[in-house]
């Protein structure tokens, strides 16, 4: 059982190591990486199925103690439904990006170990989703950050280096805040095991009346974690690094980042503020509510004024993060289920849109929306236009695609809580998203190039007459991701059941604690702690 939980971390790491051994041959690395991607996907599917069938009603929690050290002392890996779903999404995005990279990423970058780096990133992401230990989470964050730094600056183009400086600086600052918060948390609670923390903070809140000093320290630490993860997940007002850097690397890299990296931050927010810091939800989750609304609005307004394909999409990442945080902040079973549904929908759609942006760039010769492209994509490559339409409409929330159901659940949850203003904001942001998507559609896909432009390119009359052929390995991943989007939309019922079960698990920290620490450990630990307060 424990090997299964380790596999999503081991497979990418081993693939990366094998790729390093073959550092002279990018072709071998490429083949190995795609193979490793399929391996990771298989492991993720098996893991989710095992977690789903592990208990009755469906949805168990699988636990593995590394090195067989018992729970609060060693490093624990935990796969609950939420973690397993995230691993599966990471595997899907990773595989799609790896296949797309074969044709999209240029040879110099492949020679500089592009493929092993992607796998190290995937190992870090999967590790972050599966770990049950705060410090281990920090280490996983650093693993994925370091490889993302290199992937972002690989190639050393001017814009890339400039974007990388901003990205690295803010992420390092966030890591320092994370580390400080972990240190204070250890000093106060005496443990860094998430399950143990959950139990201890709950019992500290029980003993005091909520205003005692220890509970106050936990709230301070909670806010530090909120800032640290807020920077990583690009919420208002901490998002400025994202639109400054995500449009600079190759399209495959930005698709990988857009799909996964901010969502690791959102994952950590949801994990911490459902499992550990639930002692003062009136304070912490109200702040999250404000943050969510402002993130949605600023993101979508930022996108409205942008005129570059990937910058528009980058700002939309921010506004979509707002929806997920809104689900967490409402903190009802329906809202958390909505947040989980939203993440499932969003990762697939967002990665796909960035991949389509890459093809649009190839066809038009530019990513700027206010400059005429070489070809009208709609008339020269209608299939690409359709493949853009599916994720774009899903992002905006047009039924029956996946985004519609995700938004529906969240807005319904807000109305149930009588927070009509937030429901209204979510609706309006959806309309504004539709506006941005139609802007991209009209400018990049529909508009024919002006005639004089076509005549004004005498140096390459042959290629100007016919659009460049789009490689199958570029179209394949996009078509697969679009198919998943449609499937999530049409099979919304089963996906929603999965999200609901996940939400029930997330809102029941006691179940997590019991799975990790064992049934009677908790009582023994609290009795012992009353005698020795300091660690």
């Amino acid at each position, binding site marked *: 059982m424990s090997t299964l939980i380790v596999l999503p971390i081991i497979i990418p790491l081993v693939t990366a190591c094998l790729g390093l051994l073959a550092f002279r041959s990018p072709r071998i690395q490429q083949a190995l990486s795609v193979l490793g991607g399929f391996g990771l996907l298989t492991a993720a599917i098996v893991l989710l199925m095992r977690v789903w069938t592990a208990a009755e009603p469906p949805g168990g929690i699988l636990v593995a103690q590394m090195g067989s050290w018992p729970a609060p002392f060693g490093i624990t890996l935990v796969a609950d439904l939420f973690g397993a779903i995230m691993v599966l999404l990471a595997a899907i995005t990773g595989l799609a990006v790896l296949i797309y990279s074969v044709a999209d990423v240029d040879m110099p970058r492949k020679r500089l170990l592009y493929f092993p780096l992607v796998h190290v990133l995937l190992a870090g992401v999967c590790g972050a989703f599966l770990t049950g230990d705060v410090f281990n989470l920090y280490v996983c964050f650093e693993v994925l950050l370091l490889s993302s730094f290199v992937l972002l600056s690989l190639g050393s183009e001017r814009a890339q280096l400039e974007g990388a400086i*901003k990205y690295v*600086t803010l992420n390092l600052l966030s890591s320092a805040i994370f580390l400080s918060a972990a240190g204070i948390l250890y000093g106060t609670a005496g443990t860094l095991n998430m399950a143990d923390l959950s139990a201890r903070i709950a019992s500290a809140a029980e003993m005091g009346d909520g205003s005692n000093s220890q509970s106050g320290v936990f709230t301070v630490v909670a806010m530090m974690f909120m800032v640290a993860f807020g920077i990583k997940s690009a919420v208002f007002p901490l998002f400025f690094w994202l639109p400054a850097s995500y449009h600079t690397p190759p399209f495959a890299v930005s698709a990988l980042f857009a799909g996964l990296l901010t969502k690791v931050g959102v994952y950590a927010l949801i994990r911490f503020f459902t499992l550990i810091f639930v002692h003062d939800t009136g304070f912490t989750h109200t702040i999250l509510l404000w943050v969510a609304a402002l993130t949605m609005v600023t993101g979508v307004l930022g996108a409205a004024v*942008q005129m570059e394909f990937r910058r528009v999409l980058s700002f939309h990442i921010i506004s979509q993060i707002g929806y997920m945080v809104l689900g967490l902040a409402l903190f009802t079973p329906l809202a958390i289920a909505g947040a989980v549904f939203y993440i499932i929908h969003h990762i697939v759609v967002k990665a796909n849109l960035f991949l389509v942006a890459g093809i649009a760039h190839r066809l038009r010769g530019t990513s700027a929306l206010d400059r005429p492209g070489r070809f009208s994509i709609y008339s020269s490559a209608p299939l690409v236009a359709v493949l853009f339409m599916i994720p774009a409409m899903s992002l905006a929330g047009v039924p029956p695609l996946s985004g519609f159901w995700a938004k529906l659940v969240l807005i319904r949850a807000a109305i149930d809580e009588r927070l009509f203003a937030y429901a209204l904001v979510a609706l309006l942001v959806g309309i504004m998203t539709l506006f941005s998507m139609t802007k991209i559609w009209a400018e990049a896909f529909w508009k024919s190039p002006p005639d004089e432009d076509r005549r004004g390119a005498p140096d390459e009359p042959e290629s100007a007459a016919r659009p460049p052929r789009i490689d199958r390995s570029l179209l394949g991943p996009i078509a697969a991701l679009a198919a998943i989007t449609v499937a999530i939309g049409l099979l919304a019922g089963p996906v929603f059941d999965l999200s609901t079960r996940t939400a029930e698990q997330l809102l029941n920290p006691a179940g997590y604690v019991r799975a990790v620490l064992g049934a009677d450990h908790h009582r023994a630990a609290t009795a012992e702690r009353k005698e020795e307060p300091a660690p």
Partner: protein
Amino acid sequence: MNLQLLLAILVGGLFAAGIYLILRRSIVKLIIGLALISHGANLLIFASGRVVRASAPLVAEGQTSLRPPHADPLPQALILTAIVISFGVLAFMMVLVSRAYRALGTDDTDELRETDS
């Protein structure tokens, strides 16, 4: 003045100096600022592990458990990991900055406006 208080002042000073340096326009000061902040975070972990006069956390011969008072070894292990990570990250950051300086021809962060809109 006890050591705990001194450490607290030191950590606060490191964070303040680090943030001040990050807010300066020079890209080199940015690196130094980030280094100072990561030192501050490491010392913070050290301080929150309690600075006490106690024996090493080794189980004496013939015994089965630790005898208090003993020092907590975990913060040191955490700091060691964090130091290694921040070393690697800073090394990367220096290479990045030197490449950026050569490519962009400036060390002034105010002039890095190409990727903003």
